């Protein structure tokens, strides 16, 4: 057994503090909407049209993010049970139940104030069937207006003109008129262009951050750390100057880490030696987020690329929001979100990450709640193993339902996985060490 080096005390980086302040300000804006008269739009992370929402001075409230917040605070379990008591099946997505359960209890924002009901449900139907029913259910509760934006699935792995035109036309003829009507603000395409400029600038730095994990050691964890890095760009901040500044700041911090040869920061401070580089497919578990992450950094495992950080937009293969083609680029953004891509594309993306980030293996965290991600993952795993010759492993958890997180099982699975990676690394014929 080796003794771990003493870890320095955890210091919050300026970027972390900035993001925290941004989120707090946003929740304050949301909870004060009844006084300020601002209109609230609820929509989803995939296909999030924040740049457009801002054109109408409306506020963006994302139900998945609220469910995640409740998961991280270990409050989601009770909410899910509440929803199940109301007749929602134990088999369906736990985000939906956490959301409905929270509503039944009178939704409270993280600032302790009541969350206002939405004025508009923007059903951005991108990459997940559940979205369709989720907002029908919410509409049933809130009785507010709902506008649907159907984003066709990239079943053949390519976006056709017909798909793009359909999205653009819905934006023009359904979504924008609904937003104008509810907000009382006239649509100004130049304002949208301005927001998209900010998006593109932030996306450049965001991609740089993600790709910094190609360094050895990787200065970031692109899954557990990654979920914080995607915060601003996937939620209510894409298109803002705040997000541009945040990613600049983050980039500077990571540049410094690279210069100093440092690995990622963990909740317990600097990570020790990088032993395993992994690609992870699937969302994380939120109810035991810290424990889950610890199982990785304690073993020197760092995630160098993940698909979850592409769920609210895939930017690392060149796509940028384009102020010159505002509505078309919003359409392309929605069409290209990770779960809107077909399985062969998802496999190809992971294969690319395995090579580009020099990963030792693929880990799939399969989420009980989520058919959109999970159906087909076992085949994806075999495909990656076959194509790369690198080992893959499969664990099962849930997003915000604490009943489906079995720490002991996951730890055992991870331990044997890391051993498998070690074995693969050893040149053929090398002896197996008796004890570590």
């Amino acid at each position, binding site marked *: 057994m080796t003794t771990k080096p003493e870890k320095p005390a955890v210091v919050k980086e300026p970027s972390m503090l900035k993001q925290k302040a941004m989120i707090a300000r946003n929740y304050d804006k949301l909870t004060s909407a009844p006084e300020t008269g601002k209109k609230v739009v609820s929509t989803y992370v995939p296909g999030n049209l924040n740049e457009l929402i801002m054109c109408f001075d409306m506020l963006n409230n994302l139900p998945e993010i609220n469910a995640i917040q409740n998961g991280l605070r270990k409050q989601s379990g009770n909410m899910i049970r509440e929803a199940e008591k109301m007749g929602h*099946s134990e*088999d369906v997505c736990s985000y939906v139940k956490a959301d409905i359960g929270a509503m039944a209890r009178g939704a409270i924002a993280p600032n302790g104030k009541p969350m206002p009901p939405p004025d508009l449900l923007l059903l951005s139907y991108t990459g997940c069937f559940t979205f369709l029913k989720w907002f029908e259910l919410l509409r049933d509760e809130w009785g507010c207006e709902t506008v649907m934006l159907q984003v066709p*699935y990239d079943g053949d792995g390519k976006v056709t003109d017909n798909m793009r*035109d359909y999205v653009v036309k819905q934006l023009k003829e359904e979504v924008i008129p609904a937003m104008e009507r509810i907000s009382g603000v006239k649509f100004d395409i130049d304002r949208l262009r301005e927001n998209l400029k900010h998006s593109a600038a932030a996306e450049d730095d965001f991609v740089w951050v993600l790709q910094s994990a190609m360094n050895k050691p990787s200065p970031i964890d692109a899954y557990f750390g990654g979920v914080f890095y995607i915060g601003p760009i996937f939620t209510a901040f894409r298109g803002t100057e705040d997000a541009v500044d945040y990613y600049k700041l983050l980039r500077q911090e990571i540049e410094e880490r690279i210069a100093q040869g440092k690995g990622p920061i963990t909740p317990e401070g600097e990570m020790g030696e990088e032993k395993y580089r992994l690609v992870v497919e699937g969302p994380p578990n939120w109810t035991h987020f810290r424990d889950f992450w610890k199982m990785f950094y304690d073993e020197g495992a760092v995630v160098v690329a993940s698909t979850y950080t592409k769920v609210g937009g895939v930017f690392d293969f060149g796509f940028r929001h384009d102020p010159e083609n505002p509505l078309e680029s919003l359409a392309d953004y929605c069409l290209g979100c990770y779960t809107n891509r077909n*399985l*062969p594309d998802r496999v190809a993306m992971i294969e690319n990450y395995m090579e580009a980030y020099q990963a030792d293996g693929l880990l799939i965290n399969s989420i009980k709640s989520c*058919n959109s991600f999970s*159906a087909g993952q*076992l085949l994806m795993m075999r495909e990656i193993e076959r194509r790369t010759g690198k080992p893959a492993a499969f664990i099962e958890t849930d997003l915000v339902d604490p009943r489906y997180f079995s720490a002991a099982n996951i730890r055992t699975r991870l331990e044997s996985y890391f051993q498998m990676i070690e074995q693969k690394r050893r040149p053929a014929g090398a002896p197996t060490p008796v004890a570590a």
Partner: protein
Amino acid sequence: MASPKTTEAIVAHCEALFGDLDFTAARRWKDAEPGRKVIGYMPIYVPREIIHAGGMLPLGILGGGDNIEVIHGDAYYQSYICRIPRSTIELAITKRLDFVDGMLFPAICDVIRNLSGMWKLMRPEAYVRYFDVPQNFRDDLGGEYYINELRELIAGLEGVAGRKIPDDDIRRSIAVYNDNRRLVQRVYELRAKTPWKAPTSEVYLLLRAGMVLPVEDHSRLLEDYLATCEARDRPMRDNCRIVLQGTFCEQPPLSLIKAIELSGCYIVDDDFMLVTRWLLDDVAVDGDPIANLSRAFLHASAATAAKYEPDPAQKGAFLIETVRKRAAEGVIFASPSFCDPALLDRPMLAKALSRENIPYISFKYAENSGQMQPIREQAGTFADSIKLWSEA
């Protein structure tokens, strides 16, 4: 094909087709002439008219039911995913679908959607299409998108057929399917009127036959069934009348349908094999056939969990109307375990039923469920309580 002429013989014929997971009838059809092609499709709806117009056989694939031992399929799916994709994979791996030249995966849920990608990875040589449908029901918006999708589908199917599919052929096929739809409706009306003459365990098999037979043969079978059935003398029971809801994709075992009937319920409507009743009226035969199929889809198609309901006031209205039209006394929600569409929709439908004081019960099943006693008891208690209510 000469079709059998007694009800018993018709049902026996359908049951043999249902039990044949090698799809011998479809294989025979294909082998009868060189160059024939078969296009598989999954629930919930595809425009079979277009496949037919290309001279090809549309083949409904509804999983393996409780007749197949799933050995390989479980290695493809986690325990918390429904059964139909794994038994469908099993059918593919065991080469039971090796004669199928193309597969259509309709937009119904993320499981079927992702299965389309799995098929692409596993059968790169086959024609595989995810068949997207509009959730916007304006002719100039969702309709325009759908028409272009249909044109792409036609181009793809022309590639498989090795020939053009002209509009005239599509018009003719629309007429053939209109006949079939009318016959299916007549069977449903007959059952609703005299459910003791046309029990659902038979009607179900009759519809299943339509998944594997050429539509002309199926229509003949329906005609024969109607003719023999109407003349049938069977005792009427003091059963309650229920609508079965939630069975549109993964199939309940036949024993489940029988268990519901044996418990004292007449099933007077259902959502089995919606592809046969998705379009509610005849599709217009004159004019642009693609635009006609689109209009029928947008304005006269069944409301089901896989569809968005733009008007909140209409949520559940289709089900309530079915209950009224069929003079049903209650609804049984039977949903496949882990089925997102059915299970997410159910609370909203249940709420709509409650508003109308229509009683309901719910349970889940899997295509390979074995134990029917609990379901029989639950349905029996439901039937008793309905009778008590109506007598009170």
